[in-house]
């Protein structure tokens, strides 16, 4: 048996690989020297690689993200760390108005190899401003690649691919996955533009499409449904912008049923985009039932525990949604 790697350790291992092999990489963000180390996903990096390359920052999300962009335009490959999506919103101008458009609006000759890493950190009665995901917002932006790893090895290798990519990338990991384990394999460096959706579980009756933590829900639901003789195919999108729908369409052409699972709000969200991407294509004729989605209700995250219990999606909800298609 090889060594097991959990999702949080895998992120840290990705940082170690990048900082150890690429002198142009540096990290900047809040809490990088704190004993909390962003949920132990960046433990001791400043000790191993120096405080000049792992910079703890003032409380300035916008300023630091802009500064990272400026360094990216000057030959570096910075990674900005925002330990929560909610606080990252203070920095949106620099990612959406500036980094994502820089290449296009300056004629396609200059790259902005900036990676913003932010973390979905929710549950535990943290309330409306310590709970958001918002990846669909960002996936709406041309020029911004949005990466959402669902497994430990992807958490490591997609971080590496993101940072080595010449385009701005938003890499979003999820604290609910940090304990997930996988057998460790050697690091692979794959160009990000070659990375797209993968099939995590093969099936013939229904296609479950998800990313990040929702892949875990989909997989658990598939295991439950197996005993009911319902065979689920699970597709992990991995990169949600630009979105490659090829594998999803091929799968639905085979199964005839689709459930899109997404840990974000319903309206104008990723799940709706997946369903539209299937129904507007030639696969529409293969559908045996109307597609369904499992998403959050359109309300801010509650603090109260009973409300929180019904707010977040579960594998049971996914399984029920699948049962409704038969």
């Amino acid at each position, binding site marked *: 048996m090889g060594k097991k790697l959990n999702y949080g350790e895998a992120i840290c291992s990705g940082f170690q690989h990048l900082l150890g092999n690429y002198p142009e990489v*540096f990290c900047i963000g809040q809490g990088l020297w704190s004993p909390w180390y962003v949920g132990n996903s960046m433990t001791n990096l400043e000790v191993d690689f120096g405080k*000049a390359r792992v910079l703890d*920052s*003032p409380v*300035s999300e*916008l*300023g*630091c*993200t*802009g*500064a*990272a*962009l*400026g*360094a*990216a*335009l*000057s*030959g*570096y490959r*910075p990674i900005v760390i925002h330990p929560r999506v909610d606080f990252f919103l203070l920095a949106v*101008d*620099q990612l959406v*108005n*500036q980094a994502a458009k*820089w*290449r*296009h*609006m*300056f*004629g*396609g*000759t*200059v*790259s902005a190899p900036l990676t913003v890493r932010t973390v979905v950190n929710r549950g535990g009665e943290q309330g409306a401003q310590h709970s958001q995901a918002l990846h669909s917002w960002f996936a709406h932006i*041309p*020029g911004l*690649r949005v990466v959402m790893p669902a497994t430990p090895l992807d958490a490591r290798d997609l971080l590496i691919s993101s940072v080595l*990519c*010449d*385009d701005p990338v938003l890499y979003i990991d999820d604290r609910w996955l940090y304990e997930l384990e996988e057998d460790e394999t050697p690091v692979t460096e794959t*160009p990000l*533009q070659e990375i797209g959706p993968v099939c995590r579980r093969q099936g013939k009756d229904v296609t479950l499409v998800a990313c990040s933590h929702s892949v875990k829900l989909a997989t658990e639901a598939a295991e439950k449904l197996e005993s009911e003789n319902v065979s689920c195919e699970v597709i992990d999108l991995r990169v949600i912008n*630009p979105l490659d729908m090829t594998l999803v369409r091929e799968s639905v052409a085979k199964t005839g049923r689709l459930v899109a699972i997404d840990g974000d709000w319903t309206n104008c969200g990723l799940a709706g985009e997946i369903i539209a991407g299937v129904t507007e294509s030639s696969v529409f004729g293969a559908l045996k039932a109307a597609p369904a989605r499992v998403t959050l209700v359109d309300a801010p995250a509650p603090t109260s525990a009973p409300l929180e219990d019904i707010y977040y999606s579960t594998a049971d909800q996914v399984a029920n949604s699948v049962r409704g298609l038969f």
Partner: protein
Amino acid sequence: MALENGFKMDGFFPRLGKLADADQLHEPLDIGDVPADLLLGFLDKMVEVRCAEEKIADEVTDGKVKCPCHLVIGQEAVPTALAPHVRKGDKIFGAHRSHAHYLAQNGDLYRLFAEIQGKDDGCSGGMGGSMHLIDRERQLFGTVPIVGATIPIATGAGLASKMNEKGEFAVSFFGDGSAEEGVLHESLNLAASMKLPVIYFCENNLFSSHLHISLRQPADSIARFADAHCIPNMTLDGNDVVALHKAAGEAARMCREGRGPVFIEAVTYRWRGHVGPREDSDVGVQRKDDLESWRKRDPINRLWQSIAAAGHAEAEHLDELWEKHRAESEKQWQRAAEAPYPAEEELLNRVYTNAN
């Protein structure tokens, strides 16, 4: 300092005083022992910029240009004064009113005009227009119109310069309106805390769009924010290219020696409206009398008076410059007008590094 029940009542902030008084500083410049060729170079560049801007103004008036153009007429001295201090490895970022900054770095006039017309030969491939200028070969790393947006970006270029350890620096050009954006303060704090080699170059033209600074801020000095962030700073006449050149040289030296950041506030005035060729009366701004007085603080004419008085040029030299640059603007504008637009596939090709 006035105290009232223990509260400091008057603050310690400077006011601009005569720098913002339209009736003062009309006299020729004090050129001291500045070499004649440098002065004549400034004159040539500022006349080039003004002729280019007047040509653009005419084309906007005629309806041939739709892209929003923020003209720099009246403010030519600031980027002109910095340019001689900039070397390979330095990085300049600017804002919406940046035609002069592009030309001051010896950017190509044809490529500026082509950009404004959305042509493939433009400095941004026709994708950016007037507000998105770039010429990295000549150290202009980008200009954008989101107010204050390039201030943190220039700060990060300063961080890169510090990491490079080659004595390079970054420059952030911005206006007085940017001081009302929080990101200026984040950036100044970051730069001062990390000792980054950045010149924060504020062009205080007393207006943001249609609103005078007195209607937007409780004091007219922008350098007061540098004081608050413990950054060495200087406030000076933004229409005095000689004084600006000296100040920028000192700032550049301090940055190269690792003593940055530095903040320069240049007080100036735009002769045209916020955007477009007119003088603002169209948007209800009453500043006709002030503008007449500010024209007497013309950075070009004041420099010329000094050059002529010192005998550095023949009497007809200035007229010859106007003639030369007007003709060049006409020629390059026509050339750009005949150039092709970007191909349709560029709409998608330029989104990602490797088009998907």
